[in-house]
């Protein structure tokens, strides 16, 4: 990322402020019904109150907990499976077609099946989160392991690297960019499925919170929840992005 001088953020901040001002005007002058559009200050107060003394912190932690747990499971299984399949040409020949068929399937479509197996509970949500988040990281890892630069294979055999060292010191690091990108995508999927799962299974968390807020026509609570979900998405992506940049710092010329 280019280094952006702090002062250069100012116009961007002003534009954002302008949009918030627009929001303020729209809500106060009822350009859009108050049922749909709360005022910015109402949203802000509801947010503060919910975090300080209300259920929002607990709900956020629930959602984040589900998201992270499912993601860790998904990455663990996905990386191992992806590596095993990616490194073996035989395995790829047998498995790639069915993987390509499953790839476009919406993860949420598994929810009904999961409900049949687990019922409407936290395990169902965790299962679907892990299952849905597994595919991006599995497929990315597979690609990373399968697309090793052939030169590096030749270098490794010229150096007489043991098979174990070859995988550990050459194949795995070379697959890192793909694996990390897959993990970042998996995190996005985890958040989405966690929220949907909470909505459907009425599990405590932000997903359920915003659904209830909408049903009770409490727009300020709804918007507060949406803001928090945006924050979760932002923070998760920023953290993973920073980790990725640090791990792949050799890419920067």
């Amino acid at each position, binding site marked *: 990322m280019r280094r952006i001088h702090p002062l250069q953020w100012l116009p961007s901040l002003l534009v954002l402020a302008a949009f918030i001002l627009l929001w303020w005007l729209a809500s106060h002058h009822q350009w859009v019904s108050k049922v749909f559009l709360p005022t910015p200050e109402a949203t802000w107060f509801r947010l503060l109150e919910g975090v300080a003394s209300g259920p929002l912190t607990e709900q956020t932690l629930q959602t984040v907990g589900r998201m992270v747990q499912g993601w860790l499971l998904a990455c663990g299984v996905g990386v191992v499976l992806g590596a095993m399949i990616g490194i073996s040409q035989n395995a790829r020949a047998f498995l790639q077609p069915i993987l390509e068929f499953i790839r476009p399937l919406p993860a949420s479509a598994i929810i009904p099946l999961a409900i049949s197996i687990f019922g409407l509970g936290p395990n169902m949500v965790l299962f679907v989160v892990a299952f849905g988040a597994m595919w991006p990281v599995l497929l990315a890892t597979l690609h990373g392991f399968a697309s090793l630069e052939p030169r*590096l294979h*030749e*270098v490794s055999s010229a150096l007489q690297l043991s098979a174990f060292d070859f995988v550990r010191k050459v194949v795995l690091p070379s697959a890192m960019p793909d694996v990390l990108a897959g993990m970042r995508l998996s995190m996005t999927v985890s958040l989405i499925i966690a929220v949907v799962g909470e909505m459907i299974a009425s599990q405590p968390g932000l997903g359920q919170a915003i659904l209830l807020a909408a049903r009770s026509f409490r727009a300020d609570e709804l918007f507060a929840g949406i803001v928090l979900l945006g924050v979760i998405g932002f923070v998760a992506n920023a953290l993973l992005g920073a980790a990725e940049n640090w791990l792949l710092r050799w890419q920067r*010329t």
Partner: protein
Amino acid sequence: MSADPTPALQFEGVSIRLGGKEILSPTTLDIRQGEFVCIIGPSGCGKTTLLRAAAGFVQPSAGAVRRGQEIVKGPSREAAFVFQDYGRALLPWRTVAGNVSLALEAMGVPAAERPVRIDKVLQTVGLSAHADKFPLQLSGGMQQRAQIARCLAQEPSMMMMDEPFGALDAMTRESLQDELSRLVRDSGLTVLFVTHDLEEAIYLGDRVVALRSNPTPGKPSVAAVVDVNIPGPRSQLSTKEHPEYLRLRRELYHFLGHH
């Protein structure tokens, strides 16, 4: 110069067919210990394949390649290989020192000994100041030197080089040629050097082997083998004006496919 009469490398009627096509016709050639042999020829003559067979990356369809007395069955640490596309042969996630270290790690050198040996080898190629840089931060010439450093760390008896300076600009190429010459002279390494640059071949080599174009079964690939008898150390200016240099250049010119 070693007095050992056993050839370092022997090609005994080696021919290679791939995908139904004759890539290299029967080739018989002996490389002496400590010799610097350059292989030239037009595109498609099989010179790179010959080199890869010497390194053990490719098995001959007929005939055998021998290193010392043993038939070459696969790659070995004895024969280091320097690729032309240095960018793809270096591990981009390791520093220069890290890349050199890979060779030592493969050899089982204990961690405590590695820094000293890495340092020595980097000094030989002149990269000591850049030990902690990543390949992408280096120029083409420096990357190629890093690859050569890693090859030297293998402590090979032989170095195969596949047009190593082909992707570099003229100035970098010339300085690397001189560095390589000096390095090889000091270490007594046997070198097999493939190039399409005739001047480079004569400048660097003790012998130049010219392969003919269009390998055909039955017809030997080797068209000519000439000794380079230019006296004294090589210099980019004076050697290239030497009459023997010019004579060899004229003699070998048409082997490159010029008409």
